[in-house]
């Protein structure tokens, strides 16, 4: 398998340099159809990972980082047309708790999770527990992400977590949002807390270990750049 092609480097660079138009351009190149799907995904996500690190050190603004997310999503859209969808991606459901319409943070997290290799169903704002349960059952997702910016929705969040754990004990739950911190996240019964998109990969690693301590990560991003594609175990 070819592990290097100039177009891969260019794709990574286009995502990192926040250039969705350049991503479009690169997908017009016919040589991209000869490349392994996973290598293209890896290039796109490598670009986003570098941008995420910049966000973590506050070298770029949120608006700039989101342009990288847009560029990556653009690439994923092209990929869908090029190749059949990868059915083996770990599945996650995400949404904003009932009573809250602040959806932007959840959208950012959903975008980063997609970049990390997850198949994400984003239920958006004002989502009640029945919608979460129904989507989790239908998609057989292993991770649920709950977001809220308002302290008045915490009781609903706690109830949603309790219901999901009762009905779907194998699903692990990550929470985030302005009204939470790590202690509160634990107190309401979640399995993990993500303070920001920059912290998300570490939280997901912890969650993955809770799901299956022996399983090799199926996530695409190769943080140490030692290998090009990470296969599932």
């Amino acid at each position, binding site marked *: 398998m070819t592990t290097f092609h100039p177009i891969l480097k260019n794709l990574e660079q286009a995502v990192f340099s926040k250039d969705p138009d350049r991503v479009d351009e690169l997908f017009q190149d016919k040589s991209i159809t000869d490349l392994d799907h996973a290598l293209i995904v890896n290039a796109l996500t490598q670009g986003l990972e570098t941008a995420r690190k910049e966000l973590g050190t506050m070298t770029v603004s949120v608006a700039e980082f989101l*342009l990288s997310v847009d560029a990556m999503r653009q690439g994923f859209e092209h990929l869908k047309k090029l190749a059949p969808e990868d059915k083996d991606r770990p599945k996650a459901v995400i949404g904003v708790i009932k*009573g809250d319409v602040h959806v932007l943070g959840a959208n950012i997290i959903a975008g980063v999770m997609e970049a990390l290799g997850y198949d994400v169903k984003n239920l958006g704002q004002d989502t009640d527990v029945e919608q979460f349960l129904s989507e989790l059952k239908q998609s057989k997702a292993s991770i649920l992400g709950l977001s809220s910016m*308002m302290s*008045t929705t915490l009781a*609903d969040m706690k109830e949603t977590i309790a219901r999901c754990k009762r009905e779907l004990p194998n699903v692990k739950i990550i929470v985030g949002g302005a009204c939470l911190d790590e202690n509160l996240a634990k107190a309401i019964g979640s399995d993990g807390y993500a303070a920001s998109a920059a912290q998300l990969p570490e939280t997901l690693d912890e969650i993955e270990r809770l799901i299956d301590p022996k399983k090799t990560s199926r996530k695409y991003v190769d943080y140490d750049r030692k290998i090009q594609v990470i296969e599932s175990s």
Partner: protein
Amino acid sequence: MDGLIYYPTISNDEKLKTYFLKRIGCHSERTLSSAKVLDIAHDAWKKCLETATPKAIVRLTQVEEIKEDNIYAQGISIESSLWAGLAKNASNPLTLAVFALTLGSNLSQETLNAQKHSLSESYILHEAGSIIIENAADHLETMIREIPDLKNLTSSRRFSPGYCDIPLLNQNAFFQFLVPETIGIQMMGSGGMRPEKSITAAMLFSNRLPDIFPCLDCRNDKCQHRRGKRKETGP
């Protein structure tokens, strides 16, 4: 008294736009990693100004009683120890101007639509909306101060449910008093509002007010929203 309908305007000056650009990270002190952000920001600002339709409902009422944690006025009681403390030291009579303001549902829809193709654009629109509604609220405050019954009185700054000085649980009282549904604002079970860019707030009017906001009496010195230093309370 029925609610009065107002149409505050949004200031379209460069200063406000510069503030917006700075807030999303576009300012002269740093180099942007992508010029495209600036293009999106200019477009989003324009779109926001074109799409927002500020509309407000205002009601005035007389304060009847002030207790430690509550301001009791005709038709509404507001639970806030900080504002009750401030009101207690004001001269009577004390008038409360209560209002709800929205930028309308078109802007919310634009922001949601943008999410489908660009999270960056959606975020920038969201930030522009936040700045614009605060600007419209500033203009509405000026309009309220021009109401003949209030014109010669001293006014406090506006205070809104959901901030540290007045819990979000007060939202229900604001909605019962104002009925902002008449201008298209719905309250959710959590106290949040639809359209998202909506504000409820109140202002106190009196011949003499000790302060225009209660932060000076608040013990939370580290609060990021604090306005001014705390008063010394003892030796």
